[in-house]
């Protein structure tokens, strides 16, 4: 089911990116009154680009993934997209999304839902997981609370009866009952009244849930990049439940037996029985760690200590127990929490799920590089245009300036600055643009402008009295875009690497932001024990960059083909 949903989301992303956005762009332009018309040459180049299939498909994949990732809050999040209770409706994940996009104001929407409004007693923030449980299984979630209340009421009723009897006895003897006895009776009755009201309230709430008048709609993946996974047993970083060769233990299942008298340093012992779905149980081995799987979640971890001779049963130590869980006899034991889809990619050293970290890290990395690319190219084109168009002293001075500026050890300088001010996203973009990225394109643009300026059409435009700015922007620039476009993907790769390097060194984005580089750093710290923290971010980064390089190759081939004549 979730697989189909994932596919649907991706297809929607592709359609939106490839069809929707171009259409929207054209519509907007025509609304403003600009007719988008590309020259035959450009169209030919685009056709050529599309004909290089590996580049074109990479382009489709990367752009679609990025547009999809713009809505990541409603796809991968630890908050539901929508919750409904009676007439109350809230959209927590959508609010997150809005907050992300309104980064220029400090959190315009509150991320807080009052428990009391959604059928959970109290005024604190609503626990969405608990709410979700109540929606899905009202009887199980409510059972214990209701039972407890009933017990309390019946206890109280008995007590009142006792006191009443005593009072009655005294009165029948013609004596005046003591004051404290009467007070007690009064207090107990008051409490009973309150409890009954409370029970009524609870029943009303339960009725709402039982009627199905409450609902919750979760995102595709239910965990976010900010909250740690306290629901997982054991200590972080957790290994992935998906199979990684050499890292995840070999798959083995067993069954939980009864609790035994053996005590391992204060921790209870249990019996483990070999078991197999296919009827051919593997014998148990000392030191194997089993996850206790109950109702598709993990209830605890047991460690095999003492195996019987035939290997069919063993004593095991309960090393960890999920809060609130009890070990039920007959529970399924698995060496990986494989079928549960719990943390398929493991968790980081702070116990944060890696999958959302990678997904949000993709958005941050690509967004960051795009920003640096666009801003840097704008500045670079401007500087290059001024240099090439005006020439003379402007050109010479700027050239010298670039020569000096280009020798600044920029990684070193960013590190020094970052060790002082703890930069955020935009500060980092600013520094990368100022210190490095604007120079990437300046010389080429300068050359192009230099050449184009000597052409007749430019001289004609200048001669007819067109302003300098108009000549540069309207006449020369469109004819000098080729180097810009064909270089862009490669610059993009550099910026992603720069961000990852900075984050890896600890001088990048703030520590709460999800980032590939920080994950790599954690992998570096847990090098021998948690290789997934290296593999996964490297895979994410290398795949992304690989696709971008493929795009770059194709773009260069299409826009700026190098024709090598081979004589013979």
């Amino acid at each position, binding site marked *: 089911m979730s697989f189909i949903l994932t596919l649907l989301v991706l297809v929607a992303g592709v359609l939106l990116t490839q069809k929707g956005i171009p259409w929207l762009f054209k519509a907007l332009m025509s609304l403003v009154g600009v007719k988008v018309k590309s020259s035959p040459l450009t169209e030919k180049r685009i056709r050529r680009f599309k004909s290089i299939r590996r580049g074109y498909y990479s382009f489709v994949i990367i752009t679609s993934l990025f547009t999809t990732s713009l809505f990541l809050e409603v796809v991968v999040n630890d908050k539901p997209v929508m919750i409904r209770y009676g007439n109350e409706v809230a959209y927590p994940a959508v609010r997150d999304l809005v907050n992300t996009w309104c980064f220029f104001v400090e959190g315009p929407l509150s991320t807080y839902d009052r428990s009391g409004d959604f059928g959970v007693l109290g005024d604190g923030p609503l626990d969405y997981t608990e709410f979700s449980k109540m929606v899905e299984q009202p009887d199980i979630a409510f059972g214990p609370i209701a039972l407890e209340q009933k017990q309390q009421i019946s206890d109280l009723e008995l007590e009142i009866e006792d006191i009443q009897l005593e009072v009655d006895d005294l009165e029948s003897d013609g004596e005046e009952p003591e004051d404290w006895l009467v007070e007690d009776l009064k207090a107990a009755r008051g409490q009973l009244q309150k409890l009954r009201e409370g029970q009524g309230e609870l029943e009303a709430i339960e009725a709402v849930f039982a009627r199905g008048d409450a609902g919750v709609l979760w995102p595709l993946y239910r965990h976010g990049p900010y909250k740690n996974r306290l629901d997982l047993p054991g200590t972080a970083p957790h290994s992935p439940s998906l199979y990684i060769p050499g890292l995840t233990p070999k798959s083995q299942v067993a069954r939980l037996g009864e609790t035994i008298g053996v005590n391992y340093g204060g921790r209870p012992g249990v019996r483990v029985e070999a078991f197999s779905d296919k009827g051919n149980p593997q014998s148990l081995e000392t030191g194997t760690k089993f996850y206790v799987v109950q109702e598709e979640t993990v209830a605890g971890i047991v460690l095999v200590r003492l195996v019987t001779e035939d290997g069919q049963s063993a004593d095991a130590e309960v090393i960890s127990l999920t809060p609130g869980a009890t070990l039920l006899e007959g529970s399924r034991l698995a060496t990986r929490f494989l079928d549960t889809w719990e943390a398929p990619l493991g968790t980081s050293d702070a116990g944060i799920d890696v999958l959302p970290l990678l997904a949000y890290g993709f958005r941050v990395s690509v967004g960051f590089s795009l920003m640096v690319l666009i801003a840097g190219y704008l500045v670079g084109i401007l500087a290059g245009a001024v240099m090439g168009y005006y020439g003379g002293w402007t050109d010479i001075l700027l050239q010298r300036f670039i020569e000096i500026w280009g*020798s600044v050890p920029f990684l070193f300088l960013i590190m020094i600055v970052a060790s002082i001010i703890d930069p955020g996203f935009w500060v980092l973009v600013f520094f990368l643009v100022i210190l490095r990225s604007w120079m990437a394109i300046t010389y080429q643009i300068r050359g192009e402008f230099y050449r184009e300026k000597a052409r007749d059409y430019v001289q004609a435009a200048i001669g007819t009295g067109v302003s300098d700015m108009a000549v540069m922007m309207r006449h020369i620039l469109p004819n000098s875009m080729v180097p810009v476009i064909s270089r862009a993907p490669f610059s993009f790769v550099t910026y992603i690497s720069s961000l990852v390097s900075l984050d890896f060194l600890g001088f990048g984005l703030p520590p709460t932001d999800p980032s590939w580089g920080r994950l790599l750093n954690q992998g570096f710290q847990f090098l021998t024990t948690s290789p997934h923290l290296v593999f996964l971010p490297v895979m994410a980064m290398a795949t992304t960059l690989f696709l971008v390089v493929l795009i770059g190759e194709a773009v260069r081939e299409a826009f700026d083909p190098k024709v090598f004549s081979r004589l013979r």
Partner: protein
Amino acid sequence: MSGMWTYFARRLLLVPVTFIVITFMVYAVLRLAPGGPIEQLENQMRASAAGEAGGGGGGLGGTDVGLDEKAREELKAYYNLDQPIPIAYLQWLGVYPRKDKKPVSLQQRDLEPDFWNSVGQSWDRYRDIEKRFESDRVQSGIEIYGEKLHIEINAEDKAAYPQLMVQFEELLSQGPSVRDRLKDALKGQGWVLNGSQFMRPLSDVEINSVNSLTALSALYVEQEQSFQDLEGLLSTRSMEVSRRGSYFRVKVAFSGILQGDFGRSFTYNEDALEVITQKFPISIYFGLIGYLATWLICIPLGIGKAVHHRGLFDTSTSLLVFLGYATPGFVACLLLLVVLGGGSYWNLVPLGGFRSEGWETWWQQGQYWTCIKDQIHHTLVPMFGYVVGSFASMTVLMKNSLLENFGADYVRTAFAKGLPERRVIYVHALRNSLIPITAGIGHFFGIIFAGSFLIEKVCNIPGMGLLGYESIIRRDYPIILATVVFGVIIRLTGNILSDFIWAAIDPRIRFK
């Protein structure tokens, strides 16, 4: 040809300008940054004091462990932080004189017994008065600060200024940067913050109204007078004395990086230049080996790709090139360490370092083979990182340059006169297409410096990169600046060298 010489002359002239701009930028950033050496020292003191107080189970709040003003001034002078930034920069550069203090040793004193006797008497007199003054001061609850007498805030005074105190104490607990701001604010109101105490200068009226205060101020004047006498005595021999009683021979001299004085490292407590020169060979070793390996791999590969352009070999190795583009060098190192470093998989390489511990003793014992094996062991992963780092660009450069030469007229001529294809490709075309790669050797030095940060950190190689990284974290200013100086010089000369080599070996290249 003359055009080219002016070109190189201009490039060389630009070197000092670039150097000054960059080093000044770094210098200014470092000086303006909060959290300098003095604050770090104070933080350390605070941390250790808090630890002791916690260990004693005693009150944490009451401990006052800031440096007193006298010590701060002295430290500032020691780190040259008391000068304005431009002057301090020029002093660091070595074009503006600075006071160079060297402690006077006992042997030196023995050479001039008469003079030092009189100095000793003078010092004793000063100490005498100082001691008297101190005991009187403590009794009357007066604090000395700078040039003026101050009232120390004791319990009763705190009651008299309750709101002010509460507010200040709240601010005080928030750390060093707030503390500085607080100090500025207090100055405006006539209050002074010393440690965690608040003081206010006494007015003349206040001083004169109390007998003991008048006596004390007179004593203070006397004390200062005696110290000035001592200083006067020493200044005839161009010496200085500190209030703690240590004597310095003062030399006003030019002493900066131009004179080879990079300052003392804060963390290593060694000459910064020495620290750097120790690390330099290690970086060069790894960089050079990495670069040679890159050549050995990329040049044949590039040739192969060019010869089989658009063929099967070209297309299939393109995949490798793309992967090379997509993987930074340090990431490749990290991957290799995970897989081969003895974690979850194989245990083939050590987890980093330059050599194993005890390498030197093995060498002395003559176990050369073990030494060589160990060195190779430690070299593999960083070398791989350097190769991956420049693999893609160098292969593509080689290929394109060879392909361009295939289209040149002289190749056509060579074919026309009937030379075999092998000879044309491997002798005529290859020689010319190696030019851009050879010229890149100048950039190589820059790459060693820039690329080494990450690889040296990942592989834990104690070279220049790791040194730079750690000095930034520890705020070791002399080392940071020295690394920048070397980095910039190497990069600049490397770039010029590249152009020069290019022009020298390829007569067609003309710079203007």
